[in-house]
């Protein structure tokens, strides 16, 4: 038990601060562990979860620092007994859950090392079992997906309370990811479109006397039913609770997962130090371009194209060929599988440490790709607008994964002057 108690001492005390803020002392909470858990789902309709100050993740573990000590088969359970492991999804697609199975035979290390206490996509587990655990009893929880409704928020807070280490796993948990693009609309617009305007739903609604739209509360003969409240604003996991580590990606790539598991195995079996709190695990300080094997000629482009519109040169940089690739603004660490496969980087490893947002960084790179014309001094601003409007939906493209963590964070509405 030694390493788990040491780990708890080292980490849980620190993280404990935030849990104590929520008026739960670890000792008290042990018995009816659901003390704080129960009231949480009744959040105000449409209200965003309370945002806590989270440290900006800056530290990075380069692979050289934490070589994967990961072997397919471990010598049985760790000396102090198996650790407890959980994996849960918020507003995500399930790809992150599956990514953990994507590490082939190395998934066996997880089973050797850990007892899986909660992982809904892979095994049966009930929230009440989770609630019955002691605070900090789960050694490590991977939380993937953004926080978009009251259920996400409740489960994230519950898992934080029950876990010694909480890992923000994947692009959605780190920056809101693609669900974060919902911040360009509000809940009412989204519900209206999804339930009444999409072709399939419209056909159904036309057969109804009045539009049928899910309600948050419903009085059935057997009692009142609730469904989670959809928030207006999607936020990242570390906007809601304290997070120990980050693993980027959509989903995290095998190499990054191996670094994470390698660090855990090293700690659990050999007592090696864990990376410092706030580390972005399995990623590098450089941009994807540094890692991408394509040849860069730093050409200027005059026309933006999609990969299917041209014969993609297999060796030349995609940007040089006119394909907008997020590589210059994206953190390396994934091994550049997309660009090697002839598809542009989408930016799922997020911004580098040197900038505060990925979109602005990419915008600068793209705008500089267009050449200065011979008659640039004489041309009208309209010509510049024409040139730049080749970039379709720049907000959606540059902020595909990071909108909810961008400087502006969500759409605004001009109210007019006077």
């Amino acid at each position, binding site marked *: 038990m030694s390493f788990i108690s040491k780990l708890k001492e080292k980490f849980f005390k620190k993280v404990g601060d935030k849990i104590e803020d929520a008026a739960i002392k670890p000792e008290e909470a042990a018995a009816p562990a659901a003390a704080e858990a129960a009231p949480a789902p009744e959040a105000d309709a449409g209200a965003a979860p309370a945002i806590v100050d989270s440290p900006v993740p800056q530290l990075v573990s380069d692979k050289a620092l934490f070589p994967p000590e990961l072997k397919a088969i471990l010598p049985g359970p760790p000396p102090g007994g198996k650790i407890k492991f959980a994996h849960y999804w918020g507003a995500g697609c399930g790809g992150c859950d599956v990514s953990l199975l994507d590490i082939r035979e190395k998934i066996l290390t997880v089973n050797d090392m850990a007892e899986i206490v909660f992982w809904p996509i892979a095994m049966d587990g009930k929230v009440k079992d989770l609630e019955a655990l002691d605070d900090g009893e789960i050694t490590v929880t991977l939380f993937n997906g953004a926080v978009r409704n009251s259920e996400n928020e409740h489960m994230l807070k519950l898992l934080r309370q029950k876990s010694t280490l909480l890992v923000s796993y994947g692009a959605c948990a780190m920056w809101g990811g693609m669900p974060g693009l919902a911040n360009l609309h509000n809940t009412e617009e989204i519900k209206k479109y999804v339930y009444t305007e999409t072709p399939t739903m419209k056909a159904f609604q036309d057969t109804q006397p009045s539009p049928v739209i899910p309600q948050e509360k419903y009085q059935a003969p057997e009692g009142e039913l609730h469904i989670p409240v959809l928030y207006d604003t999607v936020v990242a996991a570390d906007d809601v609770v304290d997070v120990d580590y980050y693993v980027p990606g959509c989903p995290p790539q095998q190499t990054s997962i191996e670094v994470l598991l390698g660090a855990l195995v090293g700690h659990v079996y050999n007592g090696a130090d864990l990376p410092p709190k706030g580390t972005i695990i399995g990623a590098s300080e450089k941009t994807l371009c540094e890692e991408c094997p394509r040849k860069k000629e730093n050409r200027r482009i005059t026309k933006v194209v999609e990969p299917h519109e041209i014969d993609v040169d297999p060796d030349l940089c995609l940007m040089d060929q006119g394909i907008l690739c997020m590589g210059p603004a994206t953190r390396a660490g994934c091994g550049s599988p997309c660009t090697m496969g002839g598809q542009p980087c989408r930016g799922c490893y997020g911004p580098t440490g040197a900038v505060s947002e990925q979109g*602005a960084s990419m915008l600068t790179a793209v705008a500089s790709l*267009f050449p200065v014309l011979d008659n640039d001094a004489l041309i009208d601003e309209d010509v510049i607008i024409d040139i730049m409007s080749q970039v379709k939906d720049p907000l959606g493209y540059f902020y595909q994964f990071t909108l909810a963590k961008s400087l502006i964070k969500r759409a605004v509405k001009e109210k007019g002057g006077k």
Partner: protein
Amino acid sequence: MSEFDPKIIAFCCNWCSYAGADGAGVARLQMPTNFRIIRTMCSARVDPEHILRSLAKGADGVIVLGCHPADCHYIGGNYRARRRMALLRFVLEEYGFDPKRLKLEWVSASEGEKFQKTMTEFIDDIKGLGPNPIKEGA
């Protein structure tokens, strides 16, 4: 309600517009005082991040002033800047901002009067647009 008093961030290029602003001051040209100048070495030094951060912190408008085309101290900085600003305006529009909250203008070192005119017009425009919608309760 008292009259809306906008806050404007003005990024001025060290070689032209900052000197232009200085000229306007030396000549005692009258203009509204709603703007705060940030001197940059070139209009191309203004990262979109600076502008987004200004807006996120509640600036009602951002104006970037650089050297006239063909006059850039670094040869082509202003050409880069205007491509970025054009693209950034699309992004702002998608966020829901009125793109007129971001303006790019050329003011040379000798154009104190143009500086006065540009700033006065921009502040009037922003007064017409109203407060930055990102501000709570605005």
